[in-house]
Each structure stands twice: as structure tokens, then as C-alpha cells.
């Protein structure tokens, strides 16, 4: 197995605040790293550095053996796609869903103009949405529907690395399950490597091979999924796992049934 993405000693400051403090991390090809941790610990910041949206004061991002500098080529941009935590702000409100999807397809030359419409429909179907969505505008959709459009757009350009920042948090559990299955299917079809950020530990368990935990700008634990969920190595991870809300049935089964 080879390394798809390597991060070395990344440090990011916002004014005087250190949002990332010498973070180093490796993701092996064709694996998914789940990233969890405290709200405000720097997860989205890390995602934005990898996607090339902010530059660190120190450290580097390596894609395979390529060092990604401040200015990235179109090809490098295409290879790393990101699904944002709040997809709304990443859509042009004046564009229809067709325009939003077609723009990415044409910019990265995924299909030629005559096939764009068909590809758009396939993309919507893959996130369980009806093709009638194509002519409508982002504000006409529910939160979960917009999130699925963002997923379709990111996958449309066939990236090799996908960074997903809370991509399923607005979805009901049944759609969530089918989207996670979609991610897993694409992972093998497109040989995708993923960095998957979520507060939902059930989701992290379903999608990850390895889990990294952040707190206050630092990585406090990187572990295999199995280890993390049953025998985490830090007290903070244990605290997280213990705080997961539980379904009532598990406590009450064996009652008067």
C-alpha cells in the first residue's frame, strides 16, 4: 500500500490564535480516515488546507510524491475535492442545479457538452434525487437535499481524494445509510481515498478504516477503527465514545416484552 496523502507539520494561525499546531498525518491509498474531535479543534481548518483554500504558516501537504504549493494546477484541484460543512454557501444561488453540476463537469472536462445532461441525471440518481431537480434553484430544496447536491457535485469530477466535512449530518438515517453505501461503492469503483469528518460516531464507524481524533489544534490519537472504538488510547476519546446518545430500546429490552 502506498501513501495517497501526507501532511507534515502543518501549522495554521488565525491572527494570534493557533488553529493547527504541527499536525502530521498520513492517509494510505484507497482507505478512509475518519476525523473526529472537539468542536473548534481545527478539523475544518485541516480540510481547507488540504483542499488548498488556506495556506499554512508552516508545513506541507503531499499528494503522492508531489508537494502541493500555494498555487495548484487544474489537475491538482480536480484530484482533491471537498464537500463543505455548510453546502449552502458553496452554491451560486442564481444557478439552477443543472448549471451547478454542469459547471464542474465542463470545467474539468469530464464529459463533452452533448453528454452533460445525461451525466447530471445519473449523478442525481446516485444520491437518490429525482431528475426534476435539475431546473430548480438551491433555495427550493430542504437541508438534506442540498447536502446531496453538494455530494453529487464533488463526486462528479471523479477525484482521487475526497474530503467530506460532515456530509451526512443533515440527512435522515435511512438516506444517510444509502449515501454511506454510495461512498463505499465509489471508494472501490474510483479507487477513492477519503478524509471523512463527522461528529456522528456511528457514521465514522460505518465508513472509516482508521480514526484520528483532534483536540485544540492537535491530533491526540490516530488508531485503527477497531482499536479506537473498543480500546481507545486516550481519555478524551473514551469521553467522546461515552457521550454518544443511546437508543432507548437497548436499555429497556428484556423488560416486559
Amino acid at each position, binding site marked *: 500500500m502506498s501513501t495517497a496523502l501526507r501532511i507534515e507539520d502543518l501549522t495554521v494561525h488565525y491572527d494570534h490564535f493557533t488553529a493547527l499546531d504541527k499536525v502530521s498525518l498520513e492517509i494510505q491509498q484507497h482507505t478512509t480516515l475518519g476525523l*473526529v474531535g472537539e468542536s473548534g479543534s481545527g478539523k475544518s481548518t485541516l480540510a481547507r488546507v488540504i483542499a488548498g483554500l488556506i495556506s499554512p504558516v508552516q508545513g506541507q501537504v503531499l499528494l503522492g510524491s508531489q508537494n502541493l504549493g500555494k498555487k495548484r494546477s487544474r489537475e491538482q484541484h480536480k484530484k482533491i475535492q471537498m464537500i463543505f460543512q455548510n453546502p449552502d454557501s458553496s452554491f451560486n444561488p442564481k444557478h439552477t442545479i443543472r448549471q451547478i453540476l454542469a459547471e464542474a463537469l465542463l470545467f474539468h472536462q469530464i464529459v463533452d457538452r452533448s453528454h452533460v445532461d445525461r451525466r447530471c441525471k445519473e449523478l442525481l440518481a446516485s444520491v437518490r434525487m429525482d431528475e426534476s431537480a435539475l431546473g430548480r434553484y438551491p433555495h427550493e430544496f430542504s437541508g438534506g437535499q442540498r447536502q446531496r447536491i453538494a455530494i453529487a457535485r464533488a463526486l462528479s469530477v471523479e477525484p482521487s481524494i475526497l474530503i467530506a466535512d460532515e456530509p451526512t449530518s443533515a440527512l435522515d438515517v435511512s438516506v444517510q445509510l444509502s449515501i454511506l453505501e454510495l461512498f463505499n461503492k465509489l471508494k472501490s469503483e474510483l479507487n477513492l481515498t477519503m478524509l471523512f469528518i463527522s461528529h456522528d460516531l456511528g457514521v465514522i464507524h460505518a465508513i472509516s478504516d482508521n480514526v484520528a481524533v483532534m483536540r485544540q489544534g492537535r491530533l491526540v490519537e490516530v488508531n485503527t477503527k477497531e482499536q479506537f472504538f473498543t480500546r481507545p488510547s486516550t481519555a478524551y476519546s473514551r469521553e467522546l465514545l461515552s457521550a454518544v446518545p443511546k437508543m432507548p430500546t437497548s436499555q429497556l429490552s428484556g423488560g416486559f416484552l
Partner: protein
Amino acid sequence: MSASPILEVEELSLAAGSKTLVSGVGFSLDRGESLGLVGESGSGKSLTLRAILGLLPRGVEQVGGTIKSEVRAAMIFQDPRKSLDPLCPVVRQVEEVVYYRQQVSRKAARTIALELLEMLGLPDSLKQTDRYPSQLSGGQCQRIVIAIALACKPGILLCDEPTTALDVTVQQQILATITRLQQELDFAMVFVTHNLAIAATLCSKLCVMKQGSIVEHGDALSLLQHPQHPYTQMLIDSVLPLPELEGSASV
């Protein structure tokens, strides 16, 4: 045994043009009571809340039914960043709401605002330097939105996925804060969530929505333990399991 409900929704129907989005939705709530609204993405949960608040998006209209309520409602919107003013620092935003809604002095408004923020676990540094929404993380913005809703001292608190952007320990803390304030202030709550475990912990009643209608409703615990509708059953089956944490005292 209780007095009349403080919120009654009957046969509510909403539409955009000729397209029906919500149809025949009804429920009622007493003071201090919590109702969970769960179900399909796109089934009309957010629109129902907006109808109660009296703030439907442009293009969507109420085409049937009634909403009766005597008290002021406040809403925590699904997308926290979008419901904040991007050009106004966040502590300022909370302060303004306290000042106008609670009619106290500027100085008292600031104190109350800072107390709320501390209760919700926001960074202490906000006390010295206020920040714009874009300078906060997703979960921090969400807590600002919660603070603003609570600062309104509502009779009904409408919550649309208020804790999805929070890590589970902060989530636990926020839910405890909301529950405590609910006991103190006795507001009613409609709580939209995709997390069935949270709905069960927080709410005594549940409504399950699909395609604009309520397909099943009832007492939260019995509904989740003995679902009648196949859609409810499917939702419960889709909850992702977690392995047992070793060395944890399981209750």
C-alpha cells in the same frame, strides 16, 4: 388535567404553487412539553416549524389548516451560519437580542449575553475580542444561534437540528442546558432531529413524517419500541450500531 395547550396545529397544509409540500399535519403541545419531529429528508419538518414561527420562505404558502398559539416562538434554524448576520460580531448579535427582547439596560444585556455564551461552552476569549461568524467554527456558530433563541425568552422553542454540528460531549452539555432551561422557564419545544436517540431522550411525544404527512405519532418510547408503520421501522433499522466500549460500565 392540564390547562389548554399553548400550541395547536390542525390540518396544516403548505404548498409552493400547485405543488403540495405539507398536508394535514396536526399536533398540540402543553406548556413545558416537548415534541420530537423526525423523518424523511425533505418531508416538510423545517417548513412546519417555519409555519409555526410565521416565517414561511418566499414562494411557499399555507393553503389549509390552522395554527393556534398564544405565546412567542423562537427558532433555532438548521443552517446556523446562514441565520447569523455575517457583518455583525457575534457577541454583539446576542447582546442586541437580549437588549430588545428582555428590555434591560445595555450593560445588563451584555452581562446576560456573556452568561449565556459561557453556559453554552463558547470560548472565553470572546469576552475580550468579539468575532464575526466567519471567524468561528461550525459548532461555535450553532451555539451562538442557540444563545440568540434562548435570549428571546420564548414560550415555544422551535429547534431545527440544533446539535448536528457539535461534538458529542458538547452536544450532551447543550442538551442538558436546554432541558434545564426548559424546566426553569417552562417553554414548550418542537425538536426536529434525525437522531432518534436524542428524540427519545428529550421528547415525550414523537411524530414521524414522510412526504409531507405524519405517518405515525405517539408516546416517544413506545413508538420507538413498537413501531407500527413500516417507515418508522425502517428508520429504526437504519440507526448505525456501535461496538461496546471495553471497560465501560454499561447501564
